[in-house]
Structures are given as C-alpha cells and as structure tokens.
C-alpha cells in the first residue's frame, strides 16, 4: 500500500483522490475531468481502498449506498405487500386463519396465507431485512463520517488552481487593486455570516459545515431506534395483557407480580345527543347512536408492604382516576388503557320460594352468579340447595345440561327445595325462560323475581421498557434530519496572485443559494460572476439534441 505524494509535497494515505493539503486531483481520472468529485472531499475511504479479506468484503457490501438503497426498496415493497389483505392480528381471533383467508379472499388469500404473508412483519426474512438495514446504517456511516470529518477539520486555505478550476462554480477576474478587492469580499462574506480564514493571499469562506453531520446523526438515531425495537423480544421488557374488571370489584393487575390492583368503581358509555344542533345532520346520516365516551372510574391500589403474597392482600390506595380512550392510567412504567367493555352482565339473581297451591311466598334468596352458596336456609324447615349451577347453559352433545363457560350469560340452576312437607326435597330446573319440575308435580316452585346487572370493563395492561430507546432514537433521528435538510454546507475559495483573482464555490446542496451569495459578492466587488459548469454542460447537451 503506497502512500501518494502530491506535487505540493504533502504525503496522502493510499486511496486519496484529492490531496488533503492543496486539493489537487491525484488520480488520472480526476486530472482529466472538468469537475472534481467533491464527495467526502476526495478522502480515502476504507470501502474504496481495501477488498482482500472477508471482513473487507462484508464491510464493502454494507457500506455501499447502492446496497443500502436496495435494502430500503425491498423493505418498502415487502411492507406494502403486507397491506394487501389484513394481517393475522387484525382478523377475528375466533376463526382459523387458514380457512379465513381462503373463504374471504379466495385463491389469492390462500396463496397469501401459504406464503406466510398473513404474518409478514413478524417473519424471519422481514426481521432479517430490518437487521441488514441497521447494519448498513452503521457501516455506511462509519465508512464515510471518519474520513469526511478528518478532511474537513484539516482542510487548508490555499488550494491548488487545478482544484479551483474543477469546481462547479468557478470564475477568473483580472483586477486592478487586488488587496482592496479581497478586503471587500471579506466584508461581504462576513455580512453573510461566513466563517473566514485567510492565508497567503488565499481566502476560504465557509458556513453550515455542521449540516454535513446531519445524515450521520440521523443514522445514529435510527440505529438506536432499531435497537430499542429489538429489545422488545427480551423477557421483562414488554408486557401486553388484558384485565377484565366488574363494577365494584378489584382485580390484580397481571404482570405486576401481584403488587398492583385495579378497582372498577363504575363503567359508562356516553352517546352524543341526537338533538345536538351542531352535529344533528351528521348524526342523522350515521343512522345510529354515536359514542362520545368510554370511561372506567378506576382506583389503583398497591399491596401494603406488610402483607404476604398469597394471603388476602392489604391494599393501599395509590390514586383514583378516570380511564378513557386517549387517557390511560399510568403508574410505575405501566399504563392501563380502555380497551373493551360489556354492558349489563348478569350479576345476581333473586328468586322466591313459593307454595304453588296457596301462592304464598315463603322467602326470597339472592344468588351471586359468580359465587353461589351451596344452600340457603330460610328457617322453619324451609331450605333451598343449589344442586347444579350452569353459568352459560346449553345441552351438550349427549343431551345433558352443561355449561360452555363460567361467565353467567345464560345461567340455569337445578334447585333442591326443602319444606316441612317435603323433608327430602323437590327438584326443579330453572333457567332463563324455563322452569321445569324434574321428577314429578312439585308443591313448591322457585319464581324469578329480580336480576342485578353490572358493567364490565376491559383494560389493556402495558409495560414497555423499550420506550426510552425509541424516544431517544427518534429524537436524535429528527435532529439529524433537520440538521442535514434545512442547512447546507457552502464554501467559497478566493485565491489571488498579483492581479489575478480566482473564485470557486462548492455547496453540498441548494446551489441556488450559493449562487445568490456569489451574485452579491460580484455586485459588491466587481469580481466576475462564476459560471455554472453543470448548467453549461446541460445546455450544450440539450442544444445538441435540438
């Protein structure tokens, strides 16, 4: 690996394209071109210099912008494919996905499912794509930012004419009073907030260099963001659970190791007033009630330090808060969100024990549908025993009464009714809309009297310890993006030798603004407005065409 010695005497590392000292093109290609390639200041980049070992090859692969763009485009295409049909998480969870995609979307849906596109964003290859994006971001940035930083930090004021002449904006003027012109130019550029350095009749005016770091800052932010997203898969970082709480009840919050409890004091659904003047038309068109608010009046409790896990906990109130959509309850890295609800779930039922013949009512019993007692003693030899309880009643395949769940959506009972006349008890089967004697004509019956219902709220329990990474990453990304987009790095070189003044300029983007700076420079100092080589080149080409 030979170092390259420039005519100016400076020794440059292998791979350098423009002399670090004077800017002269060092390679044949650069010497012959009408414009120098100013990207990364012509500094030697690892990826452009070495290609021997395996490490070099991997490094070069991921540092290539071309590869980076391909990764971006592939991610783009893959992501959009995932929206053709709903992802698995958005289809009803009661159906078999294989059947669902086939039934709903036909042969296309079947192919979609077979290829695994129903869970595209969680697939290994999508993850691999994102991972390679992250690797590309890191390697491509390091490969460029280090040489660029060194080159810009060490850049010298006097530049070789060969360098100046090959800038996109270049002009040559013969002046009478060179010193005076240079002083004027300095004043103009200072007024435009350029940083100015002078050396041996050469001048370098520079502004907005920090915008050159924008891309690397935003890449760093993205890497932190992606790291945060990856941390999701480590145990303990992420909790995604649901807790259902009935009104008046307190439930332990899953994921908190039994430390926190939530009480649902009340759950309500509010609707918009149909006679509301402002919204009347829209509400009429909607055709049904429009929900205004879902709300759980909640109380958060923490287990008292003294109580032991396993025993009935002693609870200390932490806070009382309304949980609404867009207003989660937050505590200790957790948040509870209003997710779902069930109105008027059966809670207690009241029956009376009646004498059929006389119609006399002996007494009433109230049954807690979630915790029915085995027997209800009514005194004087009267007693009701719950022989069987079916919270969600149906006849099973064998034609026997059974229950499909423990939620009392359709409760039914087999009561055993004891009375002085029937010390062995009479059996009756009671459910919603049915009341049957089990063995024979009974003298007594259980009559339905009343029902109590409660609303149930469902809350999402969420803990996400990756959020700090996401927030920091996204913030850094945004800062870098703005830094790189809303400022541009502009440089103006002025070199004077006797009565000759050369001016050249370079901007990493937004050349129009640089051109305007040159225009004012030219207006104030009488220096010739530099010509735009790119414009000339294009004009020539279009003339050739026409």
């Amino acid at each position, binding site marked *: 690996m030979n170092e390259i010695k420039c005519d100016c005497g400076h020794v440059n590392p292998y791979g350098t394209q423009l002399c670090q000292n004077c800017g002269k093109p060092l390679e044949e290609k650069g010497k012959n071109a009408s414009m120098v390639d100013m*990207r990364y200041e012509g500094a030697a980049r690892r990826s452009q210099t070495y290609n021997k070992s395996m490490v070099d090859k991997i490094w070069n692969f991921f540092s290539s*912008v*071309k590869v*980076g*763009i391909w990764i*971006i*485009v592939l*991610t*783009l295409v893959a*992501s*959009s494919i*995932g*929206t053709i049909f*709903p*992802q698995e*998480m*958005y289809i009803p969870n009661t159906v078999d996905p294989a059947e669902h995609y086939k039934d*709903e*979307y036909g042969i296309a849906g079947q192919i979609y499912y077979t290829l695994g596109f129903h869970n595209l964003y969680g697939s290994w290859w999508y993850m691999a794509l994102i991972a390679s994006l992250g690797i590309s971001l890191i390697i491509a940035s390091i490969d460029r930012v280090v040489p660029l930083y060194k080159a810009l930090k060490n850049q010298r004021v006097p530049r070789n004419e060969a360098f100046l002449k090959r800038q996109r904006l270049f002009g040559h003027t013969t002046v009478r009073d060179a010193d005076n012109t240079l002083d004027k130019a300095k004043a103009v550029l200072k007024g435009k907030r350029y940083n100015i350095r002078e050396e041996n009749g050469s001048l370098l005016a520079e502004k907005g260099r920090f915008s050159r770091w924008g891309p690397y800052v935003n890449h760093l932010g993205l890497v932190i963001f992606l790291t945060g997203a990856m941390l999701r898969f480590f145990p303990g970082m992420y909790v*995604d659970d649901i807790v259902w709480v009935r009104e008046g009840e307190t439930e332990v919050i899953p994921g908190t190791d039994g430390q926190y409890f939530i009480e649902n004091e009340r759950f309500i659904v509010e609707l*918009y007033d149909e006679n*509301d003047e*402002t*919204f009347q*038309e*829209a*509400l009429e*068109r909607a055709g049904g009630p*429009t*929900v*205004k*608010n*879902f709300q759980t009046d909640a109380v958060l409790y923490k287990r008292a330090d003294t109580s032991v896990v396993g025993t009935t906990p002693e609870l200390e109130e932490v806070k009382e808060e309304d949980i*609404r*959509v*867009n207003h*989660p309850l937050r505590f200790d890295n957790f*948040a509870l*969100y209003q*997710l779902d609800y069930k109105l008027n779930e059966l809670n207690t039922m009241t029956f009376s024990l009646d004498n059929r013949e006389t119609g006399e009512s002996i007494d009433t019993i109230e049954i807690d549908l979630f915790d029915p007692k085995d027997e209800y003693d009514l005194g004087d030899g009267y007693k009701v025993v719950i022989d069987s309880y079916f919270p969600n009643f149906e006849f099973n395949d064998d034609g026997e009464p059974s229950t499909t769940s423990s939620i009392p959506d359709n409760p039914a009972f087999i009561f055993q009714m004891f009375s002085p006349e029937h010390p062995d008890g009479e059996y009756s089967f009671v459910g919603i809309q049915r009341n049957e004697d089990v063995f024979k004509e009974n003298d007594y019956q259980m009559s339905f009297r009343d029902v109590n219902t409660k609303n149930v709220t469902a809350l*999402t329990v*969420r803990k*996400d310890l990756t*959020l700090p990474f*996401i927030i920091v990453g*996204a913030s850094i990304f*945004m800062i870098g*993006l*703005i830094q790189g*987009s*809303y400022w541009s790095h502009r440089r103006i070189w002025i070199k004077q030798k006797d009565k000759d003044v050369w001016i050249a300029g370079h901007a990493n*983007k*937004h*050349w*129009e603004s640089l051109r305007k700076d040159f225009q004012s420079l030219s207006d104030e100092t009488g220096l010739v407005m530099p010509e*735009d080589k790119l*414009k000339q080149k*294009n004009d020539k080409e*279009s003339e050739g*065409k026409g």
Partner: protein
Amino acid sequence: METLSGNLLLITFFMYLLATIFFTVSVTGKKWRNKQGDMSGNRWGTFGFITTIIGFVSAVGYFVTRWMAAGHAPVSNMFEYTTFLGIALSFAFIILYGIYKTNVLGMFTMPIVMLIIAYASVFPSEVEPLIPALQSNWLKIHVTTTAIGQGILSIGFAAGLIYLVRTLDFTARGKKVFWLEFIMYSLVSVVSFVLIRYIFAIANYEASFQYVDENGNDAEMTYNLPPILGPNEGELLTDGAMQPLLSMPAWLRSDDANTVLWSLLAGIVLYALLRLILRKPIGGAIQPLLKGIHPETVDEVSYRAIAIGFPVFTLGGLIFAMIWAQIAWTRFWGWDPKEVWALVTFLFYAAYLHLRLSKGWHGERSAWLCVIGFAIIMFNLIFVNLVIAGLHSYA
C-alpha cells in the same frame, strides 16, 4: 358559522382559479410582451401570487370558523382532511415561491390544489362529532403536520412534472411520453370524477340496492351514479334505475368501485376530446409554453421541496403518529395499513434522497421519482382510507 366557513372555502377556490389564470398568463405572456424585456411578464406572476395569498387567507378563515363551529380542529374526516391537504399544498407553494419566485410553479400547483379541494367536496361535509379515539390534542398536531409535510412533498411532484413536460421529446412516441400522458390522463380523470358527481347530484340520481355484505348479512346501499358494477347478490330497489352489468364480491365496496370505473371511463372520453382538439399529446401541447424555463432551476425547486417536506412529513406522519398511537392504541406501532403506507412513503423518499445524493439521480430520473412519490401519497389518502379497511378508516 358553518355557512360562513363554506363561503370562505368557495372564495378560496375561486381565488386559486384566478391565480392559476394569472400564473398561466405570466408564463405564456412573455412571448407577446417580449419587446419590453424579460421582466414584463412577471407582473402577472405578482398578481397571481397576491391572489394566492388572498385565497390562502380566506382558507385560513374557513379553517378557523369551522373549528369554532365544530369545537374541534376540522381535520377529522375525508372532507376535512382532503381540503386541508389542498390548503397545505397552497401554503407550501407560497413558501417555495418565496424562495424561487417561479411563476410556472404556480401555473402547475394551483390547478392541483383546486383539484384536491374539488375532490374533497364530494365527501359529506357536515360537521361530525369526534369518536372517543379521535378526542385528543394529537389529532390536530399529528394530522396538520402530516398534511403540511405531504403538501410540501407534492410541490416536488409539481416541479417534477414541469421538468418532464419541459424536457421530454414529444415527437418520439416512447415509454416516457406514454407515462407522462398517463399522468395527464389521471389528472383529467379526477376532473371528470368531480364533474360527474356534480352532474348526477344536480339530477338527484339515486339507485338503492338490497345486498349481502361481507359478514353475510342483508344490507342496503345507495348509489349516486348509475350502477355499472352492482353489489354482491344485489337486488335493485329503485324503479327505473339501470340494472348493473357486473356484480362485485362482498369484500369490495361496490359503490366506490363503480365510482372509480365511471371516473376512468369519463376520463378517457375527456382525454380523447382534448387530444382531438390539441392534435398532439397534452404534454407536447404545453411544452412550447415552457420554453423560457430553466430545467436546472425546476429540478432544484423539486429537490428543495422534498428536502423541506421530508422532515416535516416524518415528524407528523411517523413521530407524532407514534406518540399518539402509544396514547390511544396502547402501542406506538401496530402495522395498521395506514401506518405501513406512511412508512412506505418515508422509505420511498429516503430512497429518493440517497439516489439523488449518492448516485447522482438528478433531472429527469429525479422528476419521475417525484411523480411516483406523489402517487404513493394519493394512494395512501384515497385507496388506503376507502378500500383497505383499518383503524384509520374513520371516514
């Protein structure tokens, strides 16, 4: 208040129409004003710009009064959002005109703005109450920032379009001319869509169907255009309405599909008519008007617009979106179609910037990319909202 708001929007629309005319005169007028020198044509540009400002002020009036009437920022349904996008686009134009003073940009941007506002007006425009998920300050923050970002990015499209019309060789019939004419045809289709909707609305056309929806239930659907495409197992309820020629599957919104078909057909008719009158490609007919435009300047305007718009869009469409999603939907990212398409937009413009900065995709290629980018934005606005159902399909 609502009426006032509607009138202000109408004023905006006509101001923008006037601005379009002024800008067009300023661009084309140079020829017959040549003797007075180059600057003379620019006075019309100034008129155009002033008219644009007046229109924009009126649009701000629309926004504020509607906000007062509804009690929430008017960006909550398709009508409001699409209108706001049009206003945002005119706002972005004002910014870029301030930097570059290019009249031709006005000549192309203002008609697009008008088209977007006209498109918005076919959606139900009454003030709607907010459902619980939308009751948040993030509604205005997220939606307005996103719309402004998209508006600025759309300027990149307008400038890209100018570049293509200015530089393409219309005497050679190739792929490029075909696709440019395809863009023209798409714009013409939007015009015909708006026209058709208004024509049949004035005629009070309605055709109701009884049909079977995607859940297998009986439902009713009313068409505002003659049904070429009917709903799934549809049965016509309106007397004298035409019988559909084809029946659509249940998962597709057949009335929307029917509207799209009508627009495309009417677009073909209108486009064919224009071709007959002009006797050359539409782009080719406009090209001579743009002789005095420097392609490099237009290219830079287009790039500048994207460089300004990209961070704004990212902030509104991804960052603010993630913050709100974390608050309302319990997670900052959930692969909802609208979220994914915001990501696709982001990735697309990221690819654009890398191609431009590192691979030197300037000029024509860059202009084509701007066109595709705009197509993605419109796809996300129209198709994802109306066809792919998701958490965002509130309209």
